[in-house]
């Protein structure tokens, strides 16, 4: 076989280029800590990484949704707790009102106290958070309950927003895993007799107040049961809200491990193993140096050096 200068030169250049390429590739992996320079380095991994990134973004958003829903339900729960104690107070006042030792003026005092509690309940029912009225259903920009006041400024009736596009409207939210939860406490489930609920709380309180004032002991006595039912009604809602909060926490907790798994899988595809890449970088460097030094040795030799 003839060995010509050009053949040697081409071969050396090609070999040195290959060695330099390896060094460059390893160096890039170490410096960027990314396994792939382009998608074509691992086509299947690249496609998977696109999907994983999407799932990751979706999961993070779902977790954000969960946090928001939990905050909203916590706020509702807080108001409901207050509500329950106020309702309990009304029941106490009503029980005292049916006692035989009560004078008419005592009952007037009780009626005034019940009226104060009524005002407080109305304020609670129209409680707001950053997302609007807590018990407004889907109508969150208009106060769900409006008082109709008599000449003396006392509440004579309470009107509510319509059910369907108002206080009965459920707002859903999507949690990790595509699970949907009701994110609000529709006012209808707390304050009105919309089935399955049975007590219209505001009219009941207005009646009790008026009965106390009028000395209608028998009426008040009858309504004590209704007040009990009202307390139960609110309790049931609170239990439901509490269990929803618990469920959301569970879901969030579980999604945390999903998050770690997703991140781990993405990292396996996208991130370089630094230890391995560093060692390979060293090896590639040694090969490159060897190729260079061999080239410089071969290029030096020429017959002309040996003539004369």
């Amino acid at each position: 076989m003839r060995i010509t200068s050009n053949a040697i030169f081409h071969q050396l250049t090609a070999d040195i280029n290959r060695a330099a390429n390896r060094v460059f590739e390893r160096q890039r992996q170490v410096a960027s800590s990314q396994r792939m320079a382009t998608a074509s380095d691992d086509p299947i991994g690249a496609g998977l990484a696109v999907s994983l990134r999407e799932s990751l973004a979706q999961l993070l958003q779902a977790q954000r949704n969960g946090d928001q829903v939990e905050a909203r339900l916590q706020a509702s729960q807080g108001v409901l707790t207050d509500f329950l104690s106020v309702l309990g107070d009304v029941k106490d006042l009503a029980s005292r009102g049916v006692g035989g030792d009560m004078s008419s003026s005592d009952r007037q005092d009780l009626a005034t106290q019940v009226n104060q509690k009524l005002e407080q309940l109305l304020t609670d029912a129209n409680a707001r958070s950053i997302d609007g009225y807590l018990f407004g259903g889907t109508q969150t920009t208009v106060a769900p309950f409006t008082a109709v006041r008599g000449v003396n400024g006392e509440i004579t009736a309470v009107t509510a927003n319509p059910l369907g596009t108002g206080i009965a409207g459920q707002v859903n939210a999507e949690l990790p895993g595509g699970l949907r939860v009701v994110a609000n406490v529709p006012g209808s489930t707390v304050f009105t007799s919309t089935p399955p609920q049975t007590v219209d709380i505001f009219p009941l309180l207005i009646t009790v107040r008026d009965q106390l004032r009028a000395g209608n002991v028998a009426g008040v006595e009858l309504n004590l049961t209704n007040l009990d039912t009202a307390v139960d009604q609110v309790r049931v809602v609170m239990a439901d809200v509490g269990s929803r909060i618990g469920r959301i926490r569970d879901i969030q907790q579980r999604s945390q491990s999903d998050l770690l798994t997703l991140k781990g899988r993405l990292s396996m595809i996208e991130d370089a193993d630094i230890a391995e890449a560093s060692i390979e970088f060293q090896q590639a460097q040694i090969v490159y140096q060897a190729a260079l030094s061999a080239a410089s040795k071969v290029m030096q030799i020429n017959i002309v050096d040996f003539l004369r």
Partner: protein
Amino acid sequence: MISILSSLTMARRALQAQQAAIQTTGHNIANANTPGYTRQRVDFSPSFPFSLGSAGSLGTGVDVKVVTRLRDLMLDSQFRDAHQALGQQEVEEATLAQIQRLVNEPSANGLGSAMSALFASFQDLANSPTDLSVRTVVRAKAQALADQFHRLDDGFERLKVDLNNEILVDVKQVNGLAQQIAGLNRQIAMAEGGGGTANDLRDQRDQALDEISKLVGGSVIEETGGQVRVTVGGGLTLVDGQTSVPLVAELFNASDPTYPDSARLFLGGNLLMPGGGRMAGLLKSRNSASGFVKGFQSQLDVMAKNLVLDINRLHASGIGLQGLTTLASENAVTGPAVALNAAGLPFTPVDGSFKVFVYDPSGAVTASGTILVSAGTTTLTDLAAAIGGVGGGLTATVGADNKLTITAPAGGTFTLAADTSDTLVALGLHGFFGGSDARTIAVSNSVQADVRTIAAATPNSTGAFSPGDNSNALALAGLQNDSTAITLPSGGITTFGAYLSGLVSDLAEQEAGAKRSVSLHTTMADFLTTRRDQSSGVSLDEEMTDLIRFQKAYEAAAHFTNVVNDLLGTLMNKLGS
């Protein structure tokens, strides 16, 4: 017998022959690094002998027979085959690499993440439907997604222009080389007419042939008289003897009936499909409908189109924080009296209906109506009349631009709902996006003008709605996991995410395949280059030893001349005195 003077002649010829060999060796050394140079060798042969009758014959020295090029023609054809394949693969790989850089996935700031961000913003909208800042973010995310589509589409268009330019440049090169080969054919025919070979001219021509085959492939046949014929693309003549046929590139735009959106080559009036070389790679990259520029661009268009369709379908039937005061359709029909399904709309309406509700300033429904659409007969004028007929002061007109404008009564508002006919999507009425492909997708005019029109809520069957209703926002967000979101041209269905990840995988796999192919062809081409270098290239070591060999022979011949000279002197002195 032989004369002593003929010995002197023989000595002179020997000197001349060795000198010719030394000259050729020098020529070889001088051209050691000249590209395309083939080493030459002086072939000697003993000159015609002097007959001595029965005693045999007497040698008369050396003749320079011929100066040959040491070239293996078989290797040449293999070299060209390997390089034309490599040229094609290299161009294809470069195009795919550019597309891959353009798509830039997987990454934290590509199309995929922009899409995820839009769907996430729909979730945020569902969490806080009345929050105007959240609505502004939704619009910004939609804009960002549209920008990503535009960036990619612009990139593909730029790639097309780049490929067109490269094709035009290469055509110039091919034509230059073809003329050069025709010219060299003439010179070689003239030089070789009297016998012998025109080595250096042939080297030049071989190099031009190498170049031309790297560009357009083709095959080379040497004909009588030393001229070559170059044919490309399966038999079309590029160079025949001393004439060359000019290669012409033509660019066609998208509306061309025969060659839509492509670049084509013509040779002597015939369509040329090069079998290899850079040109074949460039044309495939530019024209191929599957993969490459057009293939991936159309895949992106499919994605944008389905995204617009799916999102607008939901959005058009939803309602924002309040009804609309005025609304103009974004897609024009070809004529107000043309049936809607033949009116050149980007999406095709089907038979169905949609509802119209008119609200007074307090938001109470004052008029409502159901508009029936029969896609094959209903025209835009019919539609305007039907909407105007709903009453409540609602007006609908068809403008000179063939677009529909609906206007609410003074102080009031209106909304469109429950569309089962795709008419609203087709006309671009109350859409979230405008446009219908990667180039035209944009935030719709109504959303652009007022984020309160982003339809997070759904009006109920009587038209009543509430601002805290997030059902439509949730439905929009749910499109991200909708496994029927994209209908593929092949009829299959898939989610947006799976479609994109499939596109990325597909592109990456093609690019990886092209890389492997380039590396394979590079190895082959390198091997053949080395083989050719080994047979035709100059080895300085060899030339130096040859130099010594011929130098010694020259010295010996000179010494022989001296001896003959002495013999002559002896003859003159002894006989003459």
